[in-house]
């Protein structure tokens, strides 16, 4: 379902339609490339809308099954940041693979990257990890 | 000083002017205005740092006008007043000869607005450092403190109108204060009337005041009322950049506007 329909459904302000939107896969497909935003005659920030809808759908447990990889990715990503303050790609990828079970995906690529010196085995954390941890606590409340 | 006296004598002798308005020794070392109409009178003229008064006010007085063409010994403020009066059509272009004594003691003859304008352009603002500092100190106070200050000062006003008569820009034949249909401002001197009078004076001089401080000097009870008009003028300069007394062509800030005038208080 294209974004125009997403927004149209929301304009009804009816719970059924909202549900249809929150359960849809569409809201997970937005690449936040902002093209729509820069085109829209009404300057509607569609990506922002999509972000919000994703939060909601997760909060209400309505997220589309196909979104679980994405969610897993985000969890892994955020986890990595929460722990090190910066992204540790290998750690994140591993974490992601375990979460999703796509254990074999990109294996060859991974090793290639490693040869090219593009992957760091050990995380380069920041000094003040506490700062970032607190940041997470204060905003999300969860430890991750 | 002699240069000035000689110049005056010649001018009178050759009948180029009928009166030279300048300064002479007053009582207790002060300077007072002098109106030299004969070569003998000219000998009384003086020029030194104490010649601070603004004599331009006399030029618009009928009794002086009657005397014929006038020359005037002019300090910075006087020159500015000359320009403003010309701009306001109170002095005909070139009707007055301005005599300026230079640092070196030479005497410049400025016979037309053009010359005066150029001279003025070279001069610093008439607003004395001391007064500028007073203004800043007052602005630094809280509103209540400022109110208290002016209330204190203005309640001493006896409405003698010395400020008005000493001001070169207060040439109006009949002043708002004298208007009695309606009676805008009560005649008697009481706190409200005084406040109104001095507000009116400041507003009427905003964009016209040459900041000579004459009114302040004239006040018999020593109220620094010149700060009011000076501030009003400063306000105009700050907001519209149209200083009074710098040109002989009319450029009255409150008689003009810019669509993009920036104001913050209008809802």
């Amino acid at each position: 379902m294209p974004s125009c329909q997403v927004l149209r459904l929301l304009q009804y302000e009816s719970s059924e339609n909202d549900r249809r939107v929150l359960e849809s896969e569409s809201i997970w497909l937005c690449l936040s490339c902002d093209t729509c935003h820069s085109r829209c005659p009404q300057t509607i920030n569609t990506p922002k809308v999509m972000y919000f809808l994703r939060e909601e759908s997760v909060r209400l447990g309505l997220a589309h099954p196909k979104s679980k990889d994405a969610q897993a990715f985000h969890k892994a990503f955020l986890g990595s940041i929460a722990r090190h303050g910066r992204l540790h790609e290998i750690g994140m990828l591993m974490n992601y693979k375990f979460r999703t079970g796509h254990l074999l995906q990109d294996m060859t690529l991974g090793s290639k990257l490693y040869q090219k010196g593009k992957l760091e085995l050990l995380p380069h954390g920041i000094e003040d990890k506490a700062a970032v941890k607190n940041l997470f606590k204060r905003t999300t409340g969860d430890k991750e | 000083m002699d240069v000035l006296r000689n110049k005056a004598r010649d001018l009178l002798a050759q009948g180029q002017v009928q009166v030279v308005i300048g300064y002479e020794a007053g009582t207790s070392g002060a300077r007072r205005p002098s109106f030299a109409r004969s070569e003998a009178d000219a000998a009384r003229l003086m020029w030194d740092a104490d010649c601070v008064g603004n004599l331009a006010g006399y030029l618009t007085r009928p009794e002086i006008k009657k005397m014929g063409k006038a020359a005037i010994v002019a300090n910075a403020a006087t020159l500015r007043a000359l320009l403003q009066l010309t701009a306001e059509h109170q002095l005909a272009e070139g009707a007055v000869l301005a005599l300026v004594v230079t640092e070196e003691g030479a005497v410049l003859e400025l016979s037309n607005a053009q010359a005066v304008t150029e001279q003025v352009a070279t001069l610093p603002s008439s607003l004395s450092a001391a007064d500028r500092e007073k203004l800043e100190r007052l602005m630094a106070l809280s509103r209540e403190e400022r109110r208290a200050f002016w209330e204190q000062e203005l309640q001493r006003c006896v409405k003698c109108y010395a400020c008005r008569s000493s001001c070169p820009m207060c040439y109006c034949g009949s002043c708002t204060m004298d208007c009695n249909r309606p009676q805008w401002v009560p005649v008697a001197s009481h706190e409200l009337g005084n406040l109104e009078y001095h507000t009116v004076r400041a507003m009427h001089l905003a964009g016209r005041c040459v900041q000579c401080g004459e009114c302040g000097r004239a006040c018999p009870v020593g109220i620094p009322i010149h700060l009011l008009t000076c501030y009003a003028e400063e306000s105009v300069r700050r907001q519209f950049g149209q200083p009074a007394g710098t040109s002989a062509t009319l450029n009255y800030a409150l008689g003009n506007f810019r669509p993009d005038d920036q104001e913050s208080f209008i809802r």
Partner: protein
Amino acid sequence: MSRLGVFVCHCGENIGATVDVTEVAERCKHMSGVAHAEDYKYLCSNPGQNKIKQAIQEHQLDGVVVAACSPRMHEPTFRRAVSDAGLNAYMCEVANLREHCSWVHQKADSTTEKAVDLVRLQVEKVKRNKPLDTIQVPITRSALVIGGGIAGIQAALDIADSGHKVILVERSPALGGHMAQLSETFPTLDCSQCILTPRMVDVSRHPNITLLTYSEVEHVDGFIGNFKVAIRKRARMIDEELCTGCGECLQKCPTKNVIDSFNEGLSMRRAIYVPFAQAVPNIPVIDTEHCRRYQKKKCDRCAKACPTKAIKFDQKDEILNVEVGAIVVATGYQVMSTDRFPEYGYGTYPDVITGLQFERYASASGPTQGVIKRPSDGKEPETVVFLACSGSRDAAKGVKYCSKICCMYTAKHAMLLKHKNHNAKAYVFYMDIRAAGKNYDEFVRRAIEEDGVKYIRGRVSRIYEEDGKLIVKGADTLLGGEPVQIKADMVVLASAALPNHGQGELAQKLHVGTDPYGFVAEAHPKLRPVETTSAGIFLAGACQSPRDIPETVGQASAAAAKVTALLSRSHLAREPLVAEVNRRPAPEYSTCTGCLLCETACPYQAIGHEDIKDRNGNVLKTLAKINPGLCQGCGTCVSLCRTKAIDLHGYSNEQVFAEIMSL
């Protein structure tokens, strides 16, 4: 001691419901100077007005306060009533008990209290009112029409036919405006030139019309009935008397590469040119920007070629000063150029053109004699995409408003394309189709059903070039926003209609208001649609907002009717509420000091000065003088005057002062 009458109106329940009207009337009786007070159900009714008239007679009243609805409503009514009763009309004031009191407050003592205050306020004012007589201003019985498009042409002809002189000023070298550029016109598809040119000829032949092309309004002074206008007649470098319009000169001009603005830049013209074949007047202009004579100080081939020696290289601009009683603004519009559209390539793709450019292609008199070709390679396009709402209804990148004419001309364009090339494909991307108007929707349906134009509901997000084609990417919202991609040979943007360039400056010269977009503002959107905010200045056509030909012509005739109504009178009665400089006995003559600071403060240049002279002609005093004809009574000078020498009739210092003191 004045003898005033106060009349309090119930306005049915409108005032009575929340204000104790009888109480108010009762309290008024005891106000000083009030000789009579009464209340009545409906004072604006005839019986109501008669009550007032009778009371004036009975109690020999010398002033009246009517406490009723807003003075903006019935002040004229009551003033007429008062003058019928033999009192001066301006001895009547209205207290606004309805809009400013009863309608906006709850029923309470405080509300009645306020009502009494409002009446007292007017009572105190009327005591100080002076009898005033309306000002009679003579009218210059001729009109100026600015703009030589169809609006200006129509207005000029109508005014001229009613027997008044008209000066028609057109900025470009020829009459016709945009309509002259159009091919066929919707919804009838009759040729634009064919219906327009006869009108242009009528203008040039009309004994009452002075046509000034290649001319612009330089300066406007004065007021309704008495405008003084300076018109710059730009130098054509041609003696209009001698020129026969034979066209010899055009052929000889060596400069052939000047962008032809009449053809919207689709062709080139010479440095000496006539905008188009049927141009009125048929007199060339030398474009000094490009003419070698002026650029390179050489060449006089045109002059050599001219059989009547009409070419005058040293001709100068002339300033003509004219006086007129009324002005019609008909300055039209311009279209948003293609470089205003980022996603369509900032005007870099030659085959993305505007609707006006398409008109030129489609026009038999156009650069391609009516064959639709594409600019890049002159091939006839097989697939053409039309984009409605290009810039219109786009708050983000264009203008908020609907340009109104696009839906119709886009349908027409698509139709014309199909008629000229049956195999061509026409696609129209649209947001909504707005075809309200006689035979309009039928016309659009015809385009869709008979001519098979494909209408796609959705916007185009991007256009780019690939292998000599224009790839148009859009979405079809009727297919649920499914992406659509069309390989087109040409794209036509129905680009937004904007106020014409120079509109803003002109509006300032005329003192007429403009709307946020820069279009000329009408005095009232419903009830005074062809009048501007300045009396005596009227408007017609697209300078007010985008509109089509029928509407424009209708409006032009309406404006013309207003003008002729105005010019049919020899004098104009104006409200006497004007400012005046006071006079005093000699030697003061006036409290005015002649400082003339007020001069620049007057929005109407109504303030000049006068000299008081003795019998030998010596100037005793110079005073400010206000021209009652020019003064509109804003009072800006009054509050500026330090000596209170200026006062405003109807809002005098004494009156306003008394009002304040009554509270």
